[in-house]
């Protein structure tokens, strides 16, 4: 059983999603449209996404090993013909950090393997370090866009980067190589021959 599973966002997830949209850090780091919206409007909007707008945008629920909701991932700007989309995340406060990162990976895997998307575009506001450090972001960004979003009374710059199939293969190879180095080091310490 994988640590994080990805399932379709459903009606019963709406209250948690609203809670997240109303959270201060989420509003500063992603979008603050929920500040001025009533609960009813937010619920109606998310219901429309579930029922009518699956061709344009989809929301997924990231669940932990016991089925508990860890957060959400959503794809927007879906271009079915060109097999590209933008992927975003909102992880509930108690799951940010390690488990959140696993959720990010699971959503990337789902969008690529099951929805057959070839290029995934990431956008993160530069000051948002909820899921990754400023250093990682500076390394991965391909485009930096000033005045990208205006949230909670401030203009924010955004980092954009795309991930292709090739990028994913490379990342996987790097991860395996790092694991091999670590394994070699452990073997050396325990006196085993490599």
């Amino acid at each position: 059983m994988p640590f994080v599973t990805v399932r379709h966002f459903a009606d019963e997830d709406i209250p948690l999603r609203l809670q997240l949209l109303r959270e201060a850090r989420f509003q500063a780091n992603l979008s603050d449209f929920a500040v001025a919206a009533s609960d009813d409007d937010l619920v109606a909007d998310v219901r429309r996404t579930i029922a009518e707008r699956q061709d344009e945008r989809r929301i997924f629920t990231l669940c932990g090993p016991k089925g508990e909701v860890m957060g959400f991932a959503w794809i927007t700007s879906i271009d079915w013909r060109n097999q590209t989309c933008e992927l975003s995340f909102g992880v509930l406060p108690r799951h940010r950090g390690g488990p959140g990162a696993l959720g990010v990976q699971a959503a990337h895997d789902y969008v690529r393997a099951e929805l057959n998307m070839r290029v995934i575009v990431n956008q993160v506001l530069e000051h948002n370090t909820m899921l990754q450090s400023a250093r990682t972001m500076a390394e991965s960004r391909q485009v930096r866009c000033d005045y990208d979003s205006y949230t909670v009374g401030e203009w924010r710059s955004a980092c954009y980067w795309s991930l292709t199939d090739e990028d994913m293969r490379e990342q996987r190879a790097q991860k395996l190589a790092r694991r091999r180095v670590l394994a070699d080091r452990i073997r050396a310490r325990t006196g085993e021959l490599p």
Partner: protein
Amino acid sequence: MTDLIPLDPASAAAGLREAGEGARGFLGVDPVTENDALLTRRLAALDAQVFRAGDTLVGAAPNPHQPRQAYVASTSADEAALRALLGFLVTYRRATSYVALVERGAAATEALRRCGFAERGALRDHRHRSGAPVDVLVWFGKAAETCPS
């Protein structure tokens, strides 16, 4: 004889979602890539009927070009569940033949074979599942002659 319980569209979608892997490709829908609302819409467009038969879901949709032929699907290898569906189609829909489009290696294959279906060919790379294309096999079954129509 296994009882068939007809499902309303919302229960059909929920049932397919819970059936997981076995429901992928059921009458052409896929609960892994489609949410309940999409599944409901797709099944309605096919004029499909979904039934529960024990732990199995079975379903049928009419062939719009030949009203005596039905597309059929099942989420498991349970022969009795499929037989119950075929019996329903003969008795209440006056079906004389059935077609099933089933992914290579799907559990339902075994039930089709036991119910006398024959393989009629393979649609190459017809679906995409977990990062790879898969073939879909075409199975055909003939209803036993009951009475002259």
